């Protein structure tokens, strides 16, 4: 089923142009005829005209068939998966306040929303402003920034039809529908914002038992996949058991969530002792590795990390992995040493991998604070990889202050008792959120073979999958922050 489109051509192209010029409006149906309702009369220009001789203006207006609600649904903007969870969207009262600057909605559950006129205009759901999925086509250059809401009335229970009037700007009047579900979902009042933030906040658990799932369940069922996503989202770590010993299974598991994230170590990488005395990474030796997150030299460091234990001989001593929740530590640091905490959010540190000896030389460098807070003073991101810390590049006055804060935080991380510990066994696949949980390894002996295969998943892709599954199976809740640099 496709959208019939209403086009106006004013092409100066000889005979064809003349014919088109006579016909002011031509209606096209992409696949089959659909009866038209009242066509929209306004057709904003999307582009300033060129001064070229072959002037062409194409104005496309998506037609609404039937009621507003049906039109919105036909164009794909009634987001069932999300809106099925929106409660309390019955409208008790609509009021235009402050001379058209705001529209105040009192919902049936008593919640009150106030929407700014321009915000409403920007989100108009009519066929002109939202003809295609996922993209807004409102042209700001035509709209008066002091636009006023001059009318608002219900059209059934699910749609409010709003009229806007502008004094300056090309568009003097516009009318369009907005879904009540959309408005309730996107309400930006302090109360609604607070509720979202509470759902998004990370929770920290005293009990440091790693949740476990079976590989065959995760691969074959959405229910088990959701459990896996929940564990990764809420705790940041999960162990998948009984993975077959062939090497490609780590990819197979990862792709249940999203395509793997490529890094300078490839699409997948192996962790085993290298015969080369100077391997490209400390992980390819038998030394112990302190707590760290992988590859923070990237603008978007790896989100999830999966490590499949292919081989780990019993006779080997050492080699256990330990994991610490860095956000938990950062939260404690914020409470105990606020001044030092804010220093780490203010003074940036540099991370780099500089290696010209690799097959493809790398000189990846980035500078930013180790801890990022949002505008509400909430911790959104912690980056921790002491081994990749490049020389500090800040003004002289900040050097001592930085080291004071860094040293204190370093000690806190290294003396933090509450950690997950696990010795991997062949068939285990440990999966964790590399942006929240730092991992380390004890040194191990030379009397056997230890081989892990791993891969990464992008943090944005992971969060997208979690949000989708919350909407499909989880009552529509907001996903917990995952450590990405995102101020939500």
């Amino acid at each position, binding site marked *: 089923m496709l959208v019939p489109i209403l086009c106006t051509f004013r*092409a100066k192209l000889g005979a064809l142009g003349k014919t088109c010029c006579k016909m002011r409006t031509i209606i096209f149906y*992409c696949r089959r005829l659909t009866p038209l309702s009242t066509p929209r009369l306004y057709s904003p220009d999307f*582009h*300033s005209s060129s001064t070229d001789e*072959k002037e062409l203006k*194409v104005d*496309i207006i998506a037609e609404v068939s039937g009621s507003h609600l049906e039109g919105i649904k036909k164009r794909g903007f009634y*987001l*069932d998966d999300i809106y099925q969870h929106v409660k309390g969207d019955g409208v008790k009262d609509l009021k235009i306040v402050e001379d058209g600057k705001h529209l105040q909605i009192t919902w049936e559950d008593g919640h009150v929303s106030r929407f*700014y006129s*321009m915000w409403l205009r*920007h989100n108009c759901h009519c066929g002109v402003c939202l003809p*295609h*999925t*996922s*993209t*807004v086509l409102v042209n*700001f*250059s035509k709209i008066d920034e002091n636009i006023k809401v001059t009318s608002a009335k219900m059209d059934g229970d699910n749609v409010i039809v709003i009229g806007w009037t502008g004094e300056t700007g090309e568009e003097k009047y516009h009318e369009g529908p907005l879904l009540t579900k959309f408005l309730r979902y*996107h309400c*930006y009042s*302090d109360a609604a914002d607070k509720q979202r933030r509470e759902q998004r906040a990370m929770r920290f658990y005293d009990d440091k038992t790693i949740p476990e799932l079976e590989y065959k369940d995760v691969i074959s069922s959405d229910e088990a996949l959701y459990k896996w996503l929940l564990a990764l989202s809420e705790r940041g770590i999960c162990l998948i058991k009984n993975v077959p010993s062939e090497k490609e299974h780590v990819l197979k598991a990862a792709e249940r969530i999203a395509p793997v994230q*490529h890094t300078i170590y490839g699409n997948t990488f192996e962790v085993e002792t290298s015969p080369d*005395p*100077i391997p490209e*990474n*400390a992980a390819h030796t038998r*030394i*112990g590795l*302190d707590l760290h997150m992988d590859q923070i030299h990237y*603008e978007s460091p790896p989100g999830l990390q999966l490590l499949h234990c292919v081989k780990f001989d019993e006779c080997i001593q050492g080699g256990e992995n330990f994991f610490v929740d860095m956000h938990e530590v950062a939260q404690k640091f914020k409470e105990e040493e606020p001044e030092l905490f804010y220093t780490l959010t203010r*003074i*940036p540190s*540099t991370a*780099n991998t500089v*290696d*010209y000896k690799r097959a493809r*030389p*790398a*000189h990846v*460098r*980035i*500078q*930013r604070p180790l801890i990022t807070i949002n*505008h509400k003073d909430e911790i959104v991101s912690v980056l921790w990889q002491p*081994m*990749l810390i490049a020389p500090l590049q*800040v003004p002289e006055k900040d050097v*001592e202050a930085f*080291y*004071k804060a860094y*040293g204190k935080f370093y000690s806190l991380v290294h003396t933090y008792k509450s950690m997950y510990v696990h010795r991997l066994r062949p068939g285990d696949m440990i999966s964790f959120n590399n942006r929240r949980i730092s991992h380390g390894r004890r040194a191990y002996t030379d009397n056997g073979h230890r081989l892990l295969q791993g891969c990464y998943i*992008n943090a*944005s*892709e992971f969060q*997208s999958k979690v*949000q989708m599954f919350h909407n499909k199976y989880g009552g529509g809740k907001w996903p917990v922050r995952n450590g990405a640099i*995102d*101020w*939500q």
Partner: protein
Amino acid sequence: MKRDNGADRKRRRLGSRLRLARCKKRLPQKFWLVAFCARSSKGRRCRSQSKNAVWSRPACIRHHGYPKQQFRHVKSPRVSSIDISEDGKSLNIFWEDEHKSQFHAIWLRHNCHCPSCRLDHNGMKSSIAEDIDLDIRLIGAEIEDNEILLLRWQHSNGHTHDGPIPLAWLRIRCRSPAAEAERTQARAMVFHEDKVIPEIEYEDVINSDLGLYEWMCHLGDRGICLVKNCPLVDGTVAKVAERIAPLQHTIYGETFEVKSMPQPINAAYSPVSLASHMDQIMYECAPGLQLLHCLQFDSYIVGGENTFTDIFELAHQLREERPDYFDTLTRVPVTMSTIHYNRDYPVHMTCKRPMLALNGNGELITIYWHPMLAEIDAVEENIEPFFEAYKHFYLMVQNSQSVYKLRMVDGDMITFNNRRVLHGRAPYCNQRGLRLFQGTYLELSEFQSRLQVFHNLYGDGRLASRVGMADWQ
């Protein structure tokens, strides 16, 4: 210890008193476990230190993954004199070119290049909390063969530590105001009044490293370059992109096609005009470089030209003309989202942050601009000032006359920095003829890395200028 011949690693010959050593092969393995895992400062000295010297000198020094390619551009690493301040907290170095550097004792200790502090794996550190001693003092400094600075520190608990640091390494990390100004200037984006798209031949990019370097220089400098005469073969865009780095995967796949289709999942896949925007800013790390290969663009199609706008140039202009609007846009975060369940790979991706981001020095480092994806969910107190600032900037972007314009022809491949140069498209009539592009993306971290490597290998070793990443450098 025996001198290593160094043939396989092309190390520079050092002075006679310093020996290169393959420590790991010579020393028992347990030493290394002790050296790296021990928490005592006593266990951290190299075994080969002589007791007769004024202080013990480490037996080995490596460049720890900092190859000589990085240093060959460093001017005047020769030193006139060095002195330690009275309180032992800083070291002053006076270079022969009259430059002066000052380094803090803690910083020097944190960057000690001895094998127990710096793993031999691309320069990774193994330093531990004890090294970060705020009362540490420098008690000795000596230059070795004009290349190495040998230092001795004393911790507050009385333990001492000796270690080397290469002088050239220090010079490029000098934080003096003069060096800082130089670095800031090197990193700053340059804006060009003439909006002529540089061109390069496909053959040069594919077949030669120098052609590749020239291409990357244009992308680093202007943020846009046209690759001409590409074969009209599917997959050419991936081949060209992979000359820089592996492709950046997004929700549109590894490569994507841009052509008009019914029920498009994106406005780009329809013949409407597209206001200037950056692609996919709902990702934490939005696509960096974008390559669009014109496979077919029938000449009788009317419309469909591309325009490219340097948004950093406009943002700097906004900062000068309306600093209040600029400030609002750096302060108020907004959500950028793509929510689309009705597609093969359902997506619910959102990311909230201010549209303009500054670093600690107040320099503009990154911009996110896609009017079609922005939700503008600022809280009530910010919403009015935000819309005022947003609209003003929106108009600046839309009405800017200083733009690159291009109507592609078959075989053209336009490549641009998606995080700096916005792209837009005039509407076109798709009743007859085909307009088909194939595109792909590359990550900015990878691009910047490759460019920096090439500046060191083939260029003059300059710092790569900012590319629009969320990076405070």
